[in-house]
C-alpha cells in the first residue's frame, strides 16, 4: 500500500526551479531514505508534502489525499521533525512538547515520559537555553510520542551526539516494527544505509536515482581489492574500471557490473595473490553522482544514468 507519493513535483520560487520533477513513493512499513546535498531540494519537497508550500506543478499525495488541500486531515496521522528546529525562547521544552502533541490531537503521557528519559532531555528548561541538539530532541520527543502512521524526518540527527543518534535509530526501528512508514532525509549516509529499505538521491531538484540499496549497488558495480605478483600498468585503461587507489600494497578500484568479467580476466594475467570484492557503500554511490559535477551548476546531466 502506497502511503506517500509524488508525481512530477515542480516548485518554482520566482523563476528559480527548486524542484524540477520529483517522483518518490513510500510504501507502508517502509523506511525511505532521501539523500542529497544542501540546497538540492530535500526540505522543499518535504514542505510541499506537508502543505506548507504549494507545488507549482505535479501531484503530492499522502494516504491517498492531496497534500495541499487535505493538509489538516493528513497531519492528524503525520509526525514531522524539521531540520532546523526554531522554538519559542520563553517556553520550556516540556511545554513545547505538550503543545505539539496537542496540536496533532491525542496524547500519550507515558510515551512522552519514556522518550524524555531516553533522549535525556530536561523539559523544565527554557528553549533559549537549549543547544541545537537539545532543540532537536524536543522535536523528536514530540514526534515519536505521537501515534502517527507516517513520520517525516528532515535531517533529524543533525546536532545529536552518537548516543542520542542510537536512541533515534532505535525509535525509527520500533516505529517500523509497528508497521509505520518513515521518510528520512539525511546527510549521514551510514545512518541511511543502516535504517532505510529504499533510497532516493536528489540533485538540483530532480531525483536522479532511486530504489532499494541492492538495486542501486547493482547499477553501480563492485569494489575490488586486488594484489598481484606483477604490477598492472594498464589497469586504468581497461574499460569499466574507475577510481584506482593504492591500499595496503594492493589496488582498490570500482568495476562496472557489466564489465566485471572482462576486468577479472585482465587482472588474472598478472598472478593474483589476494582478491576481495565488496558492494559499494552508499557513500561511494553518492559520491559517484556528485564527483566532478558542481552541485550548484544548473546544466549538469552527468548524473542521469
Amino acid at each position, binding site marked *: 500500500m502506497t502511503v506517500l507519493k509524488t508525481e512530477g513535483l515542480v516548485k518554482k520560487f520566482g523563476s528559480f526551479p527548486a524542484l524540477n520533477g520529483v517522483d518518490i513513493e513510500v510504501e507502508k512499513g517502509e523506511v525511505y531514505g532521501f539523500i542529497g546535498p544542501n540546497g538540492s531540494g530535500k526540505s522543499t519537497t518535504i514542505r510541499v508534502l506537508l502543505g*506548507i508550500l504549494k507545488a507549482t506543478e505535479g501531484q503530492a499525495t499522502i494516504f491517498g489525499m492531496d497534500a495541499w488541500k487535505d*493538509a489538516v486531515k493528513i*497531519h492528524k496521522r503525520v509526525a514531522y521533525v524539521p531540520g532546523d528546529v526554531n522554538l519559542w525562547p520563553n517556553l520550556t521544552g516540556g511545554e513545547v512538547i505538550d*503543545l505539539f502533541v496537542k496540536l*496533532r490531537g491525542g496524547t500519550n503521557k507515558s510515551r512522552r515520559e519514556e522518550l524524555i528519559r531516553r533522549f535525556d532531555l530536561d523539559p*523544565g528548561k527554557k528553549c*533559549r537555553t537549549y543547544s541545537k541538539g537539545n532543540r532537536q530532541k524536543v522535536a523528536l520527543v514530540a514526534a515519536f510520542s505521537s501515534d502517527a502512521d507516517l513520520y517525516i524526518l528532515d535531517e533529524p540527527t543533525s546536532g545529536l551526539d552518537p548516543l542520542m543518534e542510537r536512541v533515534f535509530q532505535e525509535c525509527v526501528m520500533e516505529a517500523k516494527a509497528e508497521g509505520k512508514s518513515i521518510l528520512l532525509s539525511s546527510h549521514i549516509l551510514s545512518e541511511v544505509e543502516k535504517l532505510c529499505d529504499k533510497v532516493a538521491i536528489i540533485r538540483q531538484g530532480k531525483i536522479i536515482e532511486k530504489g532499494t540499496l541492492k538495486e542501486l549497488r547493482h547499477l553501480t558495480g563492485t569494489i575490488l581489492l586486488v594484489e598481484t605478483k606483477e604490477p598492472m600498468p594498464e589497469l586504468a585503461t581497461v574499460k569499466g574500471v574507475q577510481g584506482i587507489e593504492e591500499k595496503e600494497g594492493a589496488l582498490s578500484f570500482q568495476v562496472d557490473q557489466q564489465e566485471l568479467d572482462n576486468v577479472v580476466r585482465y587482472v588474472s594475467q598478472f598472478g593474483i595473490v589476494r582478491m576481495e570484492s565488496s558492494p559499494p557503500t552508499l557513500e561511494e554511490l553518492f559520491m559517484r553522482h556528485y564527483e566532478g559535477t558542481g552541485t550548484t551548476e544548473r546544466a549538469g546531466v552527468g548524473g542521469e544514468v
Partner: protein
Amino acid sequence: MAKHLYDETGRLTRFVLRRDRIRIPLWIVSFAVVSAVVAVAFTDLYQSDQERQAIAETMRNPAMTAMVGPGYGLDNYTAGAMMAHQMLLMTAVVVGLMSILLVTRHTRTDEEDGRIEMIRSLPVGRLSNLLSTLLVMALVNVLLAVVVGFSLYALNIETMDLEGSLLYGAALGATGLVFAAITAVFAQLSQNARSTIGFALGILVLGYFVRAIGDIGNEAVAWLTPLGWILRAEVYVNNYWWPVLVTVGAAIVLSVLALYLNSIRDLGSGFFPARPGRKVASPLLQSPFGLALRLQRTGLIAWAFGMLLLGASYGSVLGELESFFGDIELMQQLLVQTEGFSMTEQFIPMLMSVMSIIASIPVLMTILKLKTEEKNGRLEHIVGRAVSRNRLMGGYVVLSLLVSVVMLSLTAFSLGATGNATMEEQLPLGMFFTASFAYLPAVWVMIGIAVLLIGWAKGLSGFIWLYLTFSFAVVYLGGLLQFPEWVQKLSPYGYVSRIPIEDMDYGTAAILTGIAVLLIIAGFIGYNKRDIGN
C-alpha cells in the same frame, strides 16, 4: 595579565560603531531635531510674557509636577525655563531607553546568540567586548549632549543661552550614560537579553514614578533615581552643573562594577539563577490561540498598564482644563467649538482619538506577531500538525479583537475614574466608555488591513505602521493645521463620532465594521493560498 583583559578593545569599538553606523546617528539626530522643533514651537506659541505666565499658573499642581517634574522658574517662566520644565524629563527617559537597547544589543544579545563566543576565541581580551560597548556609549552620549546643546543654542532664542543649552544636552547625555552602565550591570546579572532589557527598563520606569512621588512629597525620595538628579540642574534657570557630574560619576562607578562582574563570571552565565520552568504545558497553552496569547502575555500586560497610566495622566489634568484652555489660543483652535458643552467635554473626543490610536499599537502588534512567527521559522511546527490555516490565523485575529476591546476599556475606565476624581463637575462613566468604544470599528478596520497584508503581501505588512502614523498625524494635527475634511476621511479614525459632542452614528460604525469583516475574510482567503515560510 591585566593588560590582556582589554586586548583589541579599539578594534572592537570600531566594529560596534560599524554595526551601528546608521542606528546611532539616527538616534542622535532625532533627539536634536525633536528638541529644536519643540523649542521653536514653544516660542512661537507663547510669544508674550503674559501668555507664558498663564501657562506657568496651570503648571502649579501636583498632577503636572508628577508628569513633567518640579517647575523651576515658574515665577519667571521664560521660553528656556518652559523647555527645561516640560521637555527635559520626557526626553531623558527616551535617552535612557536608547542606552538600554543599544547596550543590550551589544552585550547579552550577542552573548546569547553565540557571537561573543566566536569573538572570545580570537586573541581578544576577556573584557574587551563590554569595554568597547561602554566606550561607544560614552561617545554616543557625549555627541548627543554636544549636538543637542549646540542645536538648541543655534536657535538663537533669547533665554536659551549657550551654558543652559549645553547643560540641557549634558543632562540628557548623563542620563544616557548612567542607564548604559545600569544596563551593563544587568547584562552581567541576568542570563538573557530579554530579562536584561526587562530589569533595566524596570529601573527606568520605576525611577520615573519614584521621582514623581518625591517631587510631589518628600524631595529626598526623588534623590533615589538619576531621573530625579538631572532635574536638579535647573536648566536655563540656575544652571547647576553638579547634578550632571554626580550622574556621570555614578555611571563610571556602575561601569566599573559591570566590568568587575564580567571578569568573575563564565561566558553565558549570569548571577541571577535561572528559574526552573514548567515541565508540562498548562491546559491554556494547548491551542494556536493559547500559544498566541502565551507568547504575548507579558507584552500585553505591560501595554495594559501603559494604557491605564495614559488614561490616568490625561484624566488627572481634566480638572485643570477650564482654566488651562481659556488661556491658550492654540488649544481653542484645535478643538471644535460647540455651544452647550463644557471645555472638558469638548476635549474628550480629542483625547479619545489620540488614545485609541495609541491603543491600536498593541492590537496591531498582536496580529503582526503571526508574521514574526513565520519569519522566525516557527509556524512550520504548527502548520505541519493538524492545524488549519484558518484556525491558526483565526487565533491571532480573535486575540487582537479581544485586545482592542480590553485596551479601549482600560483607557476609558482610567480616564473617567481619574477625571471624575479631579473634577468638581462629574461626568457619567458610561459616557467615557461610549466615547472610547466608538473607536472600536476603526481599530477593527486596521486589524482587517493587517490581516489582508499578511494574507496577500506579507512583505508589505509593515505598511500598517505607516498608515497608523498617518492616521495619528491627520487626526491629531488635522484641526490645528486646518487640513481639509477629505484628508481626515483617508483614515478610519476620521469617521468616528466625536462623543460626547456628537451623537453616536451607528450607520457609519456598522459600515466600518462591515469593511473590517470583508478585509479579514479577504486576508484569510490569501493566507490559505500562499506558501508559509521565507
